């Protein structure tokens, strides 16, 4: 499977994403923010870090970059897009995902491992997460508090667009397990069509046991699985 990993000025998890994808036996290419095309990519990763200094708001400027126009078109055509951390913020600012990410309730930059509960398993981002398994994945952000108004949250629930929630080691939704004050402990969501997703935690930093956890693999394996399914459908 071919991935395009976007690169904005100040992206800093782009190389981690490329490394994780290659370790898992697939190919990835870095795509500079000024490019207008994603080439033959079958999925796009918008990585973490920063973009354009995150002036005004996180992701507010990045969404106008040439490469994001290509990503919009790619998503409109049903292409798979995953935004991680700053990438999640960019997708919300671009209107490809509902809601927004604001300053952590604690005002602190939080850098630690968290536990995630997968809420919807029938998506290209979650299908290979073993049923009932909590994912232990690191976060590293100052502005990861997910916010959307009540009608939007209700819609996310009805359409089962909430993919991951922060939980404690026992899998319980508690305030203590919520590292940033996100509404409903939301760590990641997808769009209604289920081809665009974003999450604050970093699965690309948790794909090898050496790094303390390999749980992030399940998310990438879900993408590989979805792409394989698509290819088989095309061949049939």
């Amino acid at each position, binding site marked *: 499977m071919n991935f395009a990993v976007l690169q904005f000025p100040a992206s800093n998890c782009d190389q981690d994403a490329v490394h994780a994808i290659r370790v898992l036996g697939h190919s990835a290419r870095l795509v500079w923010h000024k490019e207008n095309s994603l080439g033959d990519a079958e999925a796009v990763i918008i990585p973490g870090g920063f973009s354009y200094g995150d002036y005004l708001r996180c992701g507010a400027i990045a969404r106008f970059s040439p490469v994001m126009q290509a990503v919009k078109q790619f998503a409109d055509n049903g292409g798979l897009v995953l935004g991680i951390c700053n990438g999640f913020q960019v997708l919300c600012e671009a209107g490809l995902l509902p809601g927004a990410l*604001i300053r952590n*309730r604690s*005002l602190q930059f939080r850098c630690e491992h968290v536990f995630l509960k997968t809420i919807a398993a029938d998506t290209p981002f979650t299908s290979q997460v073993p049923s009932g398994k909590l994912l232990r994945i690191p976060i590293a952000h100052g502005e990861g508090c997910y*916010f959307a*108004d009540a009608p939007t949250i209700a819609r996310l629930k009805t359409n089962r667009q909430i993919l991951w929630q922060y939980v404690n080691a026992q899998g319980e939704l508690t305030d203590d397990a919520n590292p940033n004050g996100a509404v409903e402990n939301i760590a990641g969501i997808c769009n209604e069509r289920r081809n665009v997703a974003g999450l604050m935690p970093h699965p690309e930093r948790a794909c090898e046991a050496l790094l303390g956890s390999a749980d992030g693999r399940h998310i990438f394996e879900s993408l590989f699985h979805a792409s394989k399914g698509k290819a088989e459908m095309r061949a049939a």
Partner: protein
Amino acid sequence: MRMREHEHPVGKEIPSLRLRLSPTFSLQPTGRNRRLEMKAKIIITPKKAVLDPQGKTVQSALEHMGYKGVGAVHVGKYLEVELTGGDKEGARKQLDEACHKFLSNPVIEDYKLEIAD
């Protein structure tokens, strides 16, 4: 008039250069070449329903300092946009659109736009 050495030449005309030093020490052309006519002032604040931890922290700091009667504090942003055209209503329409699309995020923020002559 001869200035003492420690005085900043803020706001003083320097005839030979035809430049005026602003209080922020940036050099701006004055006179006939300057087309600046209006200034837009935009105040962006977090929506009431949105968590504002910065505002809360500032409020509690003010209370700790002993200031009485301090209620909720909201921390936002202030933008000044210099406008070079003369069409006030046209500028307002354009900036209102820019505020909605880019300068503020309507999911989490409100804005107030004012255009001063």
